[in-house]
């Protein structure tokens, strides 16, 4: 077993993404990761917003607020909220997998459909409530 000592030996690699046929399960896994990165980016906006409110003048705060109040800002917020709901529901699905629930193929497809429905419905409900009270 001498080969185990040298860590820089070329080791056999498992097949990676480009080898497999695209499937909904793998696409959802990748989107979970992408939405996680989007949420990390969005958290910077939370920091900027809080900091501007606490330490910025009224002018600095107005810049942040008008950015999110702008139609493009709202589109960004809609995408952000959709990323949140997707990551939320998909993360819940992962927690169920962690306790060993839902590994059967039909259940995987059902829970995947649930994640997509949850994302669409909650994003819609959120913005229905928000845009009603937040006339542009």
């Amino acid at each position, binding site marked *: 077993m001498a080969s*185990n000592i040298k860590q820089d030996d070329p080791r056999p690699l498992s097949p990676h993404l480009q080898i497999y046929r695209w499937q909904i399960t793998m696409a959802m896994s990748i989107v979970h990761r992408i939405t996680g990165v989007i949420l990390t980016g969005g*958290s910077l906006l*939370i920091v900027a917003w809080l900091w501007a409110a606490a330490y*910025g003048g009224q002018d600095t705060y107005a810049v942040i607020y008008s950015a999110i109040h702008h139609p493009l800002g709202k589109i960004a917020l809609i995408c952000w909220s959709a990323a949140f709901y997707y990551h939320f529901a998909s993360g819940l699905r992962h927690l169920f997998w962690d306790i060993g629930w839902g590994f059967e193929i039909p259940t995987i497809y059902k829970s995947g459909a649930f994640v997509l429905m949850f994302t669409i419905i909650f994003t819609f409900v959120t913005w229905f409530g928000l845009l009603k*009270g937040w006339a542009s």
Partner: protein
Amino acid sequence: MSGLRHKMKEVRGLGSAKSGVGHWWWQRLTAVVLMPLGLWFVYSLIQLLPHAASREAVAAWLASPANTLGMIALLAAMFYHSKLGIQTIIEDYVHKECCKISLLILNTLGHLGLTLVSTLAVIKLHFGI
């Protein structure tokens, strides 16, 4: 756990994967905490955003101790969860050792900084602007 591992494993360079299950466990724990906190935050924003054209509105919302504590808990859990997630992505896709280590350190310190800065802002707003 380490008691169950044969010494020969370490001799052959197949020791523990650094911090063992710590990363996995904290990712799950913060995920569970973030579920109610995240929904509460989104709900709060829906209430707050239409009236938040001024800094005073944000300060008024954070005048409540419950909202302040909720925000501090959210920020801590969120940035720790985020740090663990971005760390995984760096470890998966960055293979050059020096880049990887640099990015991992930047990731840790960056998230720590964001947590401190945003928490300070929340505390400041709690006591008024």
